[in-house]
């Protein structure tokens, strides 16, 4: 093993310790809330990873998280904080749904790529706004992306309750997209769709972009020290703007995949906080797209696993949030304690 590999394992060690500690905390919390602690831990593992169906659902959850986190990573690498993943997911979902309606007659082989491209384009469009405003006017992309999240949400509400509404459902959801536009399933009983493979490809593509292209080098340089990058001949504004556009496209793909792989419709509530989770994963992964693959899977397993505690030990939903947060806090603390002076 090389010295670098050893260093990597050493970096991973606190997470392992943290994970064990977190399970301990979980057991204590469950017991304190009157639940059966061993059952809880068992259920957590079984629900997320222990059964084919459970794992399939974990994979489905991984897809948007991985898209979202690599989107955030790409922005962060360029020194831009894309808080707009939620909005861009919705923009991608809107575009994907629209194109899916139009592509009703097309064969699947054409329709699905068209839907995905539309999703990417929709997200990119929403990413372009903060990109341009930051490059041209120096306006904080954080501010703009957050505002656009709200705006995108209202637009989705308009479409899903207005022109595209499915009147029978009585909710803010649109009519179903044609079956010819939906992603294939990886296994029918398992219920995982092909989106996770696309997300995996996206993560690898982002890695390749960052570390194997000149643009990626420039993105990293700009994110590291924009002044030095500018004096190194790099067009800083354009690089940041493009990174935000690409970031938006990735998030948009998440939206497209959720529509064509999972919901088969545009739905208000399509993104239950994927934006926030993506940021969390991106930062936890130390802004590395390959680490994000593992982190997204781990995070999805955590969410899926802890969520099952409602079913298995009757915890209220709020307690599940508390457990999730506690697990993360213990992880962070175990890492922090090791490095404390």
């Amino acid at each position, binding site marked *: 093993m090389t010295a670098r590999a050893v260093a990597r394992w050493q970096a991973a060690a606190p997470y392992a310790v943290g994970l064990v500690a977190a399970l301990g905390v979980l057991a204590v919390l469950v017991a304190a809330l009157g639940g059966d602690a061993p059952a809880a831990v068992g259920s957590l593992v079984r629900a997320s990873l222990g059964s084919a169906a459970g794992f399939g659902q974990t994979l489905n959850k991984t897809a948007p998280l991985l898209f979202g986190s690599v989107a955030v990573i790409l922005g962060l690498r360029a020194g831009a904080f894309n808080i707009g993943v939620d909005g861009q997911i919705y923009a991608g979902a809107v575009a994907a749904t629209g194109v899916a309606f139009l592509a009703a007659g097309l064969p699947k082989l054409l329709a699905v790529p068209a839907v995905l491209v539309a999703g990417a384009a929709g997200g990119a469009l929403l990413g372009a706004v903060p990109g341009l405003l930051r490059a041209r006017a120096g306006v904080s992309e954080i501010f703009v992306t957050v505002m656009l999240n709200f705006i995108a949400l209202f637009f989705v509400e308009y479409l899903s309750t207005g022109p595209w509404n499915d009147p029978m459902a009585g909710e803010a959801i649109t009519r179903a997209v044609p079956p010819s536009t939906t992603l294939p399933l990886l296994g029918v009983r398992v219920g995982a769709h092909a989106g996770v493979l696309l997300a995996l490809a996206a993560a690898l593509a982002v890695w390749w972009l960052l*570390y*194997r*292209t*000149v*643009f*990626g*080098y*420039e993105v*990293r*340089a700009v994110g*590291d*020290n924009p*002044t*030095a*990058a*500018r*004096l*190194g*001949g*790099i*067009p800083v504004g354009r690089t940041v703007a493009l990174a935000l556009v690409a970031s938006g496209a990735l998030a948009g793909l998440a939206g497209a995949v959720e529509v064509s792989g999972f919901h088969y419709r545009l739905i208000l509530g399509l993104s239950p906080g994927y934006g926030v989770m993506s940021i969390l994963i991106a930062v936890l992964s130390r802004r590395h797209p390959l680490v994000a693959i593992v982190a997204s899977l781990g995070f999805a397993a955590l969410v899926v696993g802890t969520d099952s505690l409602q079913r298995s030990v009757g915890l209220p939903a709020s307690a599940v949030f508390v457990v999730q947060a506690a697990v993360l806090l213990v992880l962070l603390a175990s890492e922090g304690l090791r490095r404390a*002076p």
Partner: protein
Amino acid sequence: MTPLVRLQGVRKRFGAVQALDGADFEVAAGEVHGLLGENGAGKTTLMNVLSGLYRPDAGQVEVDGTPVVIRGPQDAVRLGIGMVHQHFELVRHFTALENVVLGREGGFLLDRRALRADVESLMERVGLSVPLDRPVRELPVGVQQKVEILKALYRGARLLVLDEPTTLLTPQEVDALFSTLRSLVERGLGVVLITHKIQEVLRACDRITVMRRGRRVATVARAQADAARLVEWMVGGAPPGPAAKEPARGGAALLDLVDVQVVDSRGVVQLDGCTLQVRTGEIVGVAGVSGNGQTALAGVVAGALAPSGGEIRIRGEPVRSHGVGPRIQRGVLWIPEDRVREGVLPRMTVAENVVLGRHRALFPPLRYDPRRVRSLGEAAVETFRVVCPGPDAPAGLLSGGNLQKLLAARVFAHAQAGGVHLLVAQNPTRGLDVPSTEFLHAQLVRFCQQGGGVLLISEDLDELQKLSDRIVVLYRGRVVAEFTRAQFDPYAIGRAMAGVEVAR
């Protein structure tokens, strides 16, 4: 006599680098103590241990003969230790005044008027003057250096550590600073002075300590020291001889500035009708007191600033599109003045820093090759003797002088590959040790011999006189005087720098 401060057996390791390897050092009250050493020898690290910023892995600190534990800078401040940092630690959004008084404002309410009066009288006493009400980020680094010095003096420490305080000062300012230090030690303070300029050490210090590779090599009284011995201790052998520049034989015009005007974003005129020429094979030195348009001159030539008037020609062709990128394509490279803010990509590797600016020429857009980057970086590190764990180390970890070498390595590696015609070098040897300075000078000379031209902007008159074929003096954004090699005269140049009218 017990020394004011004694450090013994101090060890400090950063990852793979043993920065201090059992270093000893002591300074007495009433002396100016020079600290010398190659770039990366551990001078800054040692002083950071003393000022509480770094916790040593081993070793003792004694103050007034009693062992102390310094847990943080607050402890050091309490013990009366003040420090001028090599890379100034200033709050860039604060005014110079706010920076100087920070931590010693006195009183609950901030009485800016009273504090201003205090600082003004301090400036008067020590012969350093800075505009107090401008945010520091708007000040040239030379002025920032003065703010940092004023900040340390304002604190009235018992021990004052100055880490390369003079790199950007004019000779007059250096004189003023040294006489201030002298009066301070006469009042019983101790002063540690880190510098790479042997002459300064010999002039200002009572005792001198030389460090090499994290250890003390020698401590001598000034009487026993001479330049050659000091250098020998530093490098552990004889240094290379100085580079000689043959006079240029009037080549073709490389750079022409005609009546160039630059107005900055605040509407302040930075260059006010500046005209000058650089020909092939020529080093043109630019002298001037910091803040007279040097930064704007470098920026406008290197493409970082767009002129608001006048004309720029490169190899006879007028330039229309500005921006650093297009300028690099036309063969103009720049070593900027502020290595930390403008030069280095701190979290990227040393190798990745080396290829910055050349990356577009090196690789097709989709074929960035990290292995190639690494080997280029390795070569550059070797040629320029950049002290670092390797080409894969994050550049931000390097010592000040090694950062500076990295910037030089970047442009010369690029020049070696061809297609580079003009070099704009701003204080390129700031903080370099003696051998490195000589090496860099030799590189500059060789670049000219191979048909390049250099616009050398420097605060160091000796350096300018040694290397330049011509020296122009910048005053309030214009060239007010020009000297050919035969006319070089520090006093005349100094007068021109001060704005005293000189015939051109």
